[in-house]
């Protein structure tokens, strides 16, 4: 698998929380060679890579498919759209962004209105909330109401590009980077006779509450799980203690909600196999799908790996492909260990 190419392509696919079908289609093509795939009631993609012997442990690997975006709530008198956020949009970067309105039948471009400087009053010295912005689609009210309906989704336009040192930048890499790591892990495990079951879950609706992983984990009923998400990559304005660094390997989660045994196993395996890693310590829950998976049914021993990412929740999310590869290597090592062959 060409990780960079896959990241670039997958980043460009749209899949705002609740409407992930295009992302499901893209990912299904990657997963199908590795096992039976199906889509759950809430739109998550599940691949049964190894059914596993009866009574054996069953490992669930999760990453989320959905991305943040906006949803049309109202069409104004002059044809401008009002929206609400789907997930934690960074309100500071909205103005003058170009967007795509995913209307029934066709996608159409839009521009988020910015008030020209000569009209800027005190209210304009603040960053607008998502609910306060207007989207210009160039149509009058009548035509706008014909073309766009409340409930249509909106994505901020982005370019998927490679920066220096091979870093990949684009939208939705939270958590398509995790999805790619899982696909790569399955590739690494090809032909491995695991003594455990293995299921890959690319979950829906993480950014709006984690409903996809919660319900899929119930259905799959694993004994062990590792959620793969993105973690904060350090930039000079961010607190070092809450961040990892790009190109220094997956961040292994340590938190009360996570299984101490799984976290320690991941750390031991990374150290033994010389896979670079960094710690990611949280005081309670983790804010990722691992919180939901850990409490599915009677409980699941759950770990968390985070791929360090700069500029999370923006159209310029940036990750290092080697961190994706190293995450996959560590997942592979864990699966083999649990499956009795590592």
């Amino acid at each position, binding site marked *: 698998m060409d990780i960079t190419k896959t990241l670039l392509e997958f980043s460009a696919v749209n899949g705002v929380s609740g409407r992930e079908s295009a992302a499901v289609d893209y990912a299904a093509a990657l997963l199908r060679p590795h096992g039976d795939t199906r889509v759950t009631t809430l739109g998550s993609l599940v691949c049964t890579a190894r059914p596993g012997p009866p009574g054996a442990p069953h490992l669930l690997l999760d990453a989320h498919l959905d991305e943040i975006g906006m949803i049309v709530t109202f069409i104004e008198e002059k044809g401008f759209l009002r929206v609400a956020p789907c997930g934690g949009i960074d309100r500071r970067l909205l103005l*003058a962004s170009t967007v795509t309105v995913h209307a029934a039948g066709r996608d159409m471009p839009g521009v988020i209105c910015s008030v020209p400087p000569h009209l800027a009053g005190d209210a304009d010295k603040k960053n607008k909330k998502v609910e306060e912005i207007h989207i210009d689609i160039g149509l009058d009210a009548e035509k706008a109401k014909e073309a766009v309906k409340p409930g249509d989704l909106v994505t901020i336009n982005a370019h998927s590009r490679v920066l220096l040192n091979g870093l990949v930048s684009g939208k939705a890499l939270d958590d398509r980077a995790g999805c790619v790591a899982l696909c790569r892990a399955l590739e690494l495990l090809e032909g491995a006779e695991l003594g455990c079951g293995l299921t890959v879950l690319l979950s829906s609706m993480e950014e709006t509450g984690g409903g996809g992983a919660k319900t899929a984990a119930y259905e799959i009923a694993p004994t062990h799980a590792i959620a793969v998400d993105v973690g904060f990559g350090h930039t000079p304005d961010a607190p070092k203690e809450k961040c990892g660094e790009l190109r220094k390997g997956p961040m292994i989660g340590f938190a009360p909600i996570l299984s101490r045994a799984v976290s320690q196993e991941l750390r031991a395996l990374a150290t033994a196999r010389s896979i670079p890693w960094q710690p990611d310590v949280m005081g309670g829950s983790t804010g990722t799908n691992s919180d939901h998976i850990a409490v599915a049914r009677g409980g699941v021993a759950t770990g968390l790996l985070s791929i360090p990412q700069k500029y999370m*929740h923006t159209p310029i999310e940036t990750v290092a492909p080697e961190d994706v590869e190293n995450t996959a290597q560590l997942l592979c090592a864990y699966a083999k260990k649990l499956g009795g062959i590592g």
Partner: protein
Amino acid sequence: MRTLVKNIEALCALPGVSGWEHPVREEILRQIGGSCDCSVDPLGNVIAFKKGRKTPKNKILYSAHMDEVGFVITFVEDSGLLRFAPVGGIDSRVVLGKAVEIGDKRLYGVIGSKAVHLQEEKERSEPQGPDKLYIDIGAESREQALEHVSPGDRAVFRAGFGRLGQDKLFGRALDDRAGCALLIELIGRDLAYDCHFSFTVLEETGCTGAATAGYGVNPDIAVAVETTTASDIAGVDPDKVVCALNSGPVVSFMDKGAVYDHGLYTLALETARRANIPCQPKQGVFGGNESRALQAARGGARTLAVSLPCRYLHSPACVIGEPDLAHTATLLEALLEAMAEL
């Protein structure tokens, strides 16, 4: 000859931040070189003379600026991140989360900051000035960054160009490549009278190019062909709208930089009426353009500004109306005849 819209798209695709207008200048020279006399003055203005069917009583100059607002790289951090300053007026709130292209090689970079999850409420609501932001090209050290970038390099937003709704266009640098395209269109026509044209540099940083172009050409009448703020968007009181898209070219009686020749102002409105094309006054004293410099060159020139109404000026996505383009071209050609015999 390309259609006006195609040519605007081609010109907007070129970076031309003040002082680094050379990509735009080269393209304009390539386009008009065969159909008029043209030269480049010491500051980099393109000065052109198009012979008409008759010699006018007044020497007339049509001027549009080639430069655009953007950024200049000021400093390279040890971390490899680039510090920058705005060139021209850019709203702090349209910068974050955008991608940029730096220098002649158009190196890709992104303007990011720490993740939304790590921001305090105050940080989310208050815009950050450009002095707090940086461009990330993926470099990991000052040395590596300096292999690709030098202080002084200019950067532009990486932005798309396209149709918005049915009859509007969005793109970066419509201010004032749309004006440049209109002048190129006029040069391509069989004009009734001789006309001088200038494609100027350094408008956004103080109208310096127009000052020397005005001196060099020494016209009796100078017309700035520009874009001007249209605030026909949601939530703006009628008295602040200034002008509206697809209501025809905008003529100014006064702005923050100049009081226009009242005879020319009324002549423009009257010429539009006789030509049966829509035309609107700029309703409000806002903004300014290179008329101020054209007006004061040598012993002075009578000046007029004819502008395309444009939403979201100085942002990565400006919006103009397509019908306004043809109407403005028609008005400029008719005005040439009207002004020639004043």
